């Protein structure tokens, strides 16, 4: 190693690390402090609106994964589709959002929540009522600006002051 610089480079580097001792850590302590995720978060699930949905199956067709299973019957009275079963495998879906983008009736949304870990593989498959929106399953504003407006503002690290203590 050259000592042309007489160790000044080392000393400067050490100063940088020393300065960091007196800075605010950037940590958000997860279970207690939560970051507000983006308003367009694509969380680990899908939310389905059984009222708006017409059973057109566009979502299932546009899904690159084929993660959505829809079984429908035709209601002879109204000549409309009746959704018998809609099933999404959360462990197989890649949260790409293409189904949301494709649905012509805005009947399917990305979920806002991400805490969907399970002990068993089978529990990751969600069907029918389990897909409906509920207070602990909020929908996210992905492709849906009107929902996005309601959601809390995203926490940004750029806005956090870390330099001074």
């Amino acid at each position, binding site marked *: 190693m050259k000592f042309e610089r007489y160790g000044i480079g080392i000393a400067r580097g050490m100063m940088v690390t020393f300065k960091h001792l007196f800075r605010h*850590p*950037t*940590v*958000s*302590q*997860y*279970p207690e402090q*939560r*970051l507000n*995720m983006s308003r367009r978060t694509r969380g*680990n*699930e899908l939310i389905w609106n059984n009222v708006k949905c017409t059973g057109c199956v566009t979502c299932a067709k546009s899904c*690159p*994964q084929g993660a959505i299973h829809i079984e429908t019957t035709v209601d002879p009275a109204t000549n409309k589709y009746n959704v018998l079963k809609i099933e999404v*495998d*959360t*462990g*197989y*879906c*890649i*949260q*790409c959002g293409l189904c949301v983008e494709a649905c012509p009736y805005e009947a399917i949304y990305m979920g806002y929540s*991400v*805490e*969907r*870990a*399970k*002990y*068993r*593989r089978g529990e*990751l498959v969600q069907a029918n009522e389990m897909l409906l929106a509920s207070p602990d399953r909020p929908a996210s504003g992905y492709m849906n600006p009107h929902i996005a407006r309601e959601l809390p503002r995203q926490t940004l*690290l750029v806005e956090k002051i870390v330099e001074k203590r």
Partner: protein
Amino acid sequence: MEVEKPVESRCFDLQTELDRTEGANTEVLKAKSIAPIPDPDEWLEKSLERNILLTTVDTLVDWARRSALWTVICFPACCAFEFIATAGPRFDISRFGMEIIRASPRQADLMITAGTLTWKMAPQVRRIYDQMAEPKWVIAMGACGCSGGIFASSYSVVPGYNRIVPVDVYVPGCPPRPEALLYGVRMLQNKIAREHVDIKLPFPLTGTKKEG
């Protein structure tokens, strides 16, 4: 130092033989892993009843085990960077005492399978898992870990880590956000907290009759 060989020569003969055996091993493993390995959590419901009888030893052991989960290196693909982000300064997995990432499976407790598992990689992962010292746990991270995810239909991808190793917690997402992973870790900690050690005493102690 001079070695007789000229600069251009290679020390390797093309090690086709070696590659062939590795390929054969992969095929054997592939044939064996058609059915998923059952999740090692049948006891979960049962243990809930036993929960009341938890001994102090159980509490201590489980506390120690769940507060010091050291991860082994198994970072095949994209999810690895969400894992690294989790270890990074914003989510900071070190708060749970998990920042020690051991390169050697002998000293690790937890395998976070961060990424796509291909059939070529599968024997290696299985080997690393086998070489981990007991007790050990696996978190399947990401869609690839749960089911093969976006690559499930590919010819070369294992559809889910549960074909190769028993999985304790599935964390969906592609990739799971750091919060999701932390949630999975906490679920694993809860699971460990319910584990029970059977103590075999070399001599019977009077007064402590074993239940059940």
